[in-house]
Each structure stands twice: as structure tokens, then as C-alpha cells.
């Protein structure tokens, strides 16, 4: 089990990236950033440069696959898709997230 699962912030970013890529199909870094902003209704603004260490790491872990292609405006970009291993990791992360938020919610309600 990769050790960073304990790191909630990184785990959250991983979860977001996996979820969005899984739903949308191949995206490059810029597109991914756009989708994150849309999906979170701009409430979660992240520094877009910080996506890349995560993308590299997740590719290294073989959760993602990167393939070079061209954007609509003809620029070279790497398009990321979720692999089978990535999908399994997504399920794991989602379950963890639900467990965590449930627990926190319950605690907030009864505190």
C-alpha cells in the first residue's frame, strides 16, 4: 500500500484527478485543471503547477498512462488516461473518502 494514502491532502488531489480523468477520458494538464475548477465550482482553486508532481507520481505508480498528442490549437501536450490499476485505486480512495467524511460529519453533528 503506498504510504501517501495517509496524507489527506495529497490523497484528495489524487482522488480528484482520478475521478475526473475516469469520467472525462483523456485530458492534458491544462484541461484537467479547468475541469477541477468547473467541478468544484471554483471553490477549490489549486496552483495549476502543483498538478504535475501528482501526475508524474501517479504515472510512475502506473495508475495513469500519459500519451503525447496535440491540443485543439495544435500544441504538443501529454494526455492522461486512467489505467485499470488506477480505477482500482480510485475505488479505494472513494471508499476511504466516504468513510472519512461520514465519520467527520457524524462527529460534527453530535459534538
Amino acid at each position: 500500500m503506498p504510504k501517501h494514502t495517509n496524507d489527506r491532502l495529497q490523497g484528495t488531489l489524487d482522488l480528484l484527478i482520478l475521478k475526473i480523468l475516469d469520467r472525462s477520458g483523456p485530458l492534458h494538464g491544462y484541461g484537467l485543471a479547468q475541469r477541477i475548477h468547473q467541478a468544484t465550482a471554483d471553490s477549490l482553486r489549486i496552483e495549476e503547477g502543483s498538478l504535475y508532481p501528482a501526475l508524474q507520481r501517479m504515472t510512475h505508480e502506473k495508475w495513469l498512462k500519459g500519451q503525447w498528442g496535440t491540443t485543439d490549437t495544435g500544441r504538443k501536450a501529454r494526455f492522461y488516461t486512467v489505467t485499470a490499476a488506477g480505477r482500482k485505486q480510485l475505488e479505494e480512495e472513494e471508499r476511504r473518502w466516504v468513510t472519512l467524511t461520514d465519520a467527520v460529519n457524524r462527529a460534527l453533528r453530535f459534538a
Partner: protein
Amino acid sequence: MSPIRRIWNVLRRRRLDEELRQEVDTHLALIEEEERLNGLSVEQARRRALARFGSPMASRERSLEAIVATWLENLCKDFMFAARRLMRSPAFTVAAVLTLALAIGANAAIFAVVHRVILNPLPFADSARVISLEDGMPSRNVPFGFNSLTTQLYYAYLERAHSLESVALYRIEDRALTGQGDPERVQTARVTPSLASVLRVAPMIGRWFTEAEGVPGGPQVAVLSYGLWTRRYGADPNILGRTVALDGVSAAVVGIMPAWFTFPNVTVDAWTPLSLTRASAAENYSFTGVARLRQGATASGAGAELNRLHADLEREYPGNGYSQLVAAPATLIEATTGRVSGALWIVLASVGLVLLVACANVANLFLVRSEIRQREVMLRTALGADRSAIARYFLCESVLLSMTGGILGFGLAWGAIQLLVAFGPSNLPRLTEVRLDGVALLFTLGLVMLTAVAFGGLPLLRSTPIAAALRDGGRGGTPGSRHRIRQLLMGGQVALALVLLIASGLMLRSFQELRAVNPNFDASSALTFRIGLPAADYPDRGRIAAAHGAIIDELSRVPGATAVSAATCLPLVEGCNQGGALFVDGQAMQPGQQPPIVLRRAVAGGFFETMGMRMVRGRSITRGDVERNEPIAVITEGLARVTFAGIDPIGRRVRFGNRALPSGDAGWLTIAGVVADTPVLALGETRALPQLYMPIFAFRQVPLPPRTDAMTFVVKTAVPPAGVTAAARAAVARVDPKLALAQIRTLQELLDRSSSQMAFTMVLLAIAAVVALTLGLIGTYGVMSYIVSQRRAEIGVRLALGAAPGSVAGMIVRQGGRVALAGIAIGFIAAIAAGRLIESLLYGVSSRDPGVFGFTTLLLLAVAIIACWIPARRAARLSPLEALRTE
């Protein structure tokens, strides 16, 4: 998996970074496009993009960090910087690497020898309990371990000695191996079947002998050595059950011993069972034995028990000398490594010390450097380098230095081992197996690590009080105590070098003395080889004598041969000696007095002339004597002295026997001459062993005649002796094509071999001494250079005030010379003490030989002065201006 990919990614870093750059650039461009659509200017869009993205550089950096093993990169970078720093000061680097290479190399080489020869000399299970049964009769000149057991003793030891678990007897014989291929003389050992249980060994193929095969009339079987099996039979796995003929007797091969099994010695190629029964136990002393001690028994305890047994045996078998027989069993390890092991330990200890000194030397060089670089380190510390970064800084250098030193040292060790194996005595166990194996490699690696930490850590300790160093401002205000430590270091290594120099000098002198011993025979240009006549073809003494005569005639016709003769045993050859009690006609034995044990040898005519042995009195044994079966004898001077003190022995009659035979005329030999003593087992024997020579008789002329079926031939040549080997072989084949030549060597080789153990110890000590001397030189030079560098300012002032350069140089040399002299004085005293330890290894030279002490002391003093003089001269040449400016 992924850590390995991270390490792999180190190599792909450039490509990965390029891809990231492309990706990031596209991303930034896309943001800019988007912001431009929102109506921003080019400049504003760019700023906006950077604000949204963050630092592109940091993003790329962290992305790479996520997938590349950056620790490895940093390590590589650290090492590269360290290598560059070392390259910038080549003098320091060469001195340090050389020092370490010498020390590590010497340690690895000596360790490899010690590991194999002493720590692991016998590959037998629980070998500490195996003892060699070394009996001897000191009162009758019979040395210990000299075929000194009888079969009566065997049964007595086996049945009555409680301290022994099992006992085995053996006798080495060379026999003719015939059938399939050329006939060949091979060394064989007749052994009791119990040998396997004493040594706890088993054949690698097949089986060992059964008890039933060890009784007279039992089946004829043989076990072959791995060497013979591969050499002669091509490692044929179907050899079992086939027969080989040894001396014409067919024996079924039942087993093959593993390659490492070389008992009793490396030359033995086959083992056959010794046929023995309780009833046939006899009284000839012709066997050697080994035994396994019972759990808890000691060799000395067993010795005491065996000596008590000897007293009982004297009552049971009177007159066979058992009461004079002294058992001195030693563990087989002691018996085989014995004298050398002491020397090896001494050498290992001294090279260990040498390594310590080397570390101290390099640490000193390092300190000199680190002091020069104190400012650099301070700067780094001030800029925020933490202690681990500083530690890396120094450790990288020391690891690089010791690794390079280790690799070079390993090469040196390899060379040294070739030298040692070449000089090694053949009786030293497993010496030929000495090589730089995994264990030696591990040992060397351990040394490298240790040295790296030892001298790399020192400057680290020194660099701790940064604040103090800052206060000093790097000025040359060195406290005296540090000088004192350096001088101690320098004096210490001078002392150590002197001890080792003296020890190796003493060995060298012993070696010279030993080689100067007159063996009383002329070893120049003579070829020797042994020929044995198989009993099946040569069943009686008549045929044997005729064959030897015919072989000598054929050999005489070999071109280049000037004289040919033969004897049952040559000087300095083991395994062919036959001894017996000698009685003198008309010399009454006092009650309790025992006749001397004398080595008896049969010779062909002209033996003494061919060997260049000097006749002291009377005449030698001629060809005519042999042909007429003349009952005459030639005795050695030593025998004449012992037995005929003050009387002319010529014309007296002597007779061999186990006890006094009834007097009469039968079997007497008349002494015709006296020949000078020749060494029997080793050069420089403390006592000349008495020997008696008689002609080869064609019939049983005397009681206990020496066995003449195997004889060693000596061919004196006018050409280099090795060149006539082929012709000699052809000459022998003309007499009988089934005969094989064995133990082919020149007399000179025999002589050389007898001093090989001394040569070996000498080479060992010489290696240690050369290393110590070189290190002493480098070390002294290093210390003096440091002192000079620290005194630059003072020297500058002296020169500026008008001191002559010569007097400045003299001052420095005097300072170093005082330390060197102190070291020499200590070394001198230590060498006198150490001399005691090697006393038993010396020959013909006192352990306090003034010549050796004087010469080595002067040599070392000269070396020390040179090492001081070079930095001193540099100091004297200093320009005062420059010296003062650097302050």
C-alpha cells in the same frame, strides 16, 4: 519495483525533464490564450499565467523528485565534487592512495594466507581432535614422526589407549601404475581402513575400504585421488569397478576422493588398504599414524597415556626399543602448520599495525588539508551547511581514497600471493589453494570501510569547534599538543618499520646461512628420478639387481651423461628412509644399553663419486663390489663418531638386526670407508643422522636388507640436466618399456626445496618490512611537511633577518631527526624483544645479530633523514617575502 525504476530514472533524467518542460510550456501557453480571450494584454496574460500556475521551475523540480531517485543523484554529485577536489591536489591524492594501497594490499595478502593455511588448514570435520602420532627415540637419534610406528604399537594404541577414539596407520610407497596408457610411477598410501573414520572423510564417488578389505587375503581394492582420476582417466564416471594395476597387482577401483583431500600429502594419488591382523603384528618401525582423540581428551594427555603403554609393551616384546620410544602426539594442525603458524601470526599482527599506521598517516595528510580548507568549511557552515553536509564532504573524499587504495591494494595482494605461493614450502598445507577469494575480498572491503571511516572521521572531529576556528581566523597558532601527537605518530611508525626490517633482515641472514650450509654433495648439473620395479615382473633380488645394472648401463650411454649411479634414498628426500638397529662385532652391549638406529641404504657402484660426496677415510663402493656382492659397508662420519668413538672403524664388522643375533659369520658387513655426513631430512639438521651404505645385493646377503625394488637414479650431466630427461626416459624404456620415471628433479631442486620454508617466512616478513618502510617514509615526509607549513611565517622571519638557508634546513632536519632517533631507539628495544618470538625460525644467526641490527638501523635512519630533508630544503628555499605575505 518502483524504487528500482526511480534509480533507473536517474539515467533518463534529461529526457524526463525535457518532456516536462514541453508539458509545462503548453500549459502556460493555454492559460495565456484563455486570459487573452478574457481581454488581457500579452504582458498581463503572461503574468496571470504565472500567478495561476506557480513557479514552472518548482513544478518541474518537484515532478522529477517524485519519480527520480534524487538521493542517488546527490550522492553522485557529492562524489564527483570530491573527485574533482582530490584531482586538484595530486600530491596528496597519490600519497594517500599509495599508502592505503600498500597497507590494504599487504593485509589482504597475508590474510588470504592465514585464512587458508592457519585458520582453515585441514578440511576435515572436527579437525582439532585429529592428532598425528609422532613417536621418536631421542636417546637413539631417531627423530619424531619418522615412520616411527610398528603394527604392534597400532594394536596397542587401538585397544588400550582410552584417550584415542580411533587410530589409523599409513605408509607412503611409490608404485608403478600400469594398464591403459603409459606406465607411471605414482605415490600411493597404504592405509588402514580406519583412516576414513579418523579423518571423517568419505569419497566423492563410490565408497571407502571396508574392514574386510584391511586383512591379509582380502580383496584388492584402491581408491583414487581426484587428480589421478581426472588426469589419467579423464574423469570417467564409470571408473568404479574397473581395475588398475599397482606394481603389477590388479586392484578394483572402489572410490574417488574429493579434490581437496590430500592426506598424507598432495603427491599421493591412490590409497590401498594396509593388510593387518592382530596375529601378524610385527616389530618393524615402518608406519606413520594419525588418531582421533576421544571427546575431551587432549594431545598431551594422550601422549602421557601412550608413554605408559610403551612401558607395558617393553615387557611383552622385549628388545624392540619400546621403552625408549617417546610419544609426542601433536594435533595434526600443529604438526602441519607448526613453525610457520607462529611466523604468520606475527606477520599478520605487524601488517595490521602497518594498516593502523597507514590510517594515521592518511589522517595526518587529511588534517593538513582540512586545516588548509578550514576557511572553506567555515564558509559552508556559515552559509548554512549542516553537520551532515560537512560530514558528506569529508567522507566522500575518504571513501573515494580508500576505494581506490583498496582496488590498487587488491591488485598488489594478488601479486604478493603469486610470490608467496611460488616461494611456499611444499609441506605447508593448502598453500597452493591460497587465492583472493570471496572471504579475502570481504576482508579487504571491510578494511576499506574501516579505513575510510577512521581517517575520514578525524577531520570531522576537528572541524566541530567552528567558532574557535573563526576566532583564530585560520592563523598558524597551532597548539603544541597537536604537534606532539604528530611526532608520536612519526616516531611510532619509525619504530615499527625498524622492528619489521630487523625481523626480515634476520630471516634473510638465516636464509643465507642455510644456503651456505655445505650439504656435502655436489648439487650441480645432476638429474634424479625414481624407478620402481613391479614385484610381478621382478620377483627376486637377483632380477632386481640385474635390472638396475642394465638401467645404469643404458643411462650411461645417454649423450651428455658423465656419470650414473643409484641409491635407495637420496639426501633431503623423505619417505624412502629405512632404519634399523646396528650391532658391532665384538662390541658387547651393556645391560640396558641399546644399539644405535642407523639408516641403511643400498647403492650402485660409484654412487659417492656421482653425487660428489667426500670420502673421509677408506674406499668407496665400486661397481665391482656390487657385481661380486661384496659384503662391505661405507658409514657416515656421524655414525663413526657415535659408534666407534676414537677407534678406526675400517675393517670392523657390523650387522643389522632387531636384537642381537647369535654370533657367527653370517650377515656381517665389513666397513670399507667413511663418507662425510649428508643431510637426511633438512639442511642444517642439528644432529647428523647416522647412515650406512652397502652395495645392492643380488641375494639376501644380510639380515634386514634395504628394499631395493625402488631406487633413485642420479645422472651427472655435462649439459643442463633437465635437457636429458627425454633421453633418460627412452634409455629406461629400452630396458623395460613398462617402467616409469617418477619424482623427476635435479639435485639443485632438492636442495632449494629444503630451504623453501625459510624462504617463505622471509618473503612474508620482507613484504611487511617493505610496506612499513615505505609508509614510514611517506609518514615522516607528511609530518615534516606539515610542520614546515605551520612554521612558514617563522621561517620567513628567520630568513628575512638573515638566517642562512642551510641553517634553516638544518633546523628542520634536526627537529625531525630527534623524533626519528627516538623512534629508532624504541624500535631497537622492541626488536630485541620480538627477536625472541622468531628465534625458533632462525638458523645460524643470533636473534640479536649486530650486523642486521646495525645495517637496518642505519638504513632506516638514512630514509628518515631523506624524508625530513625534502621538506627542509623546501623551507630553506622559501622566499621570505612570500612566506610573510601568506600570513
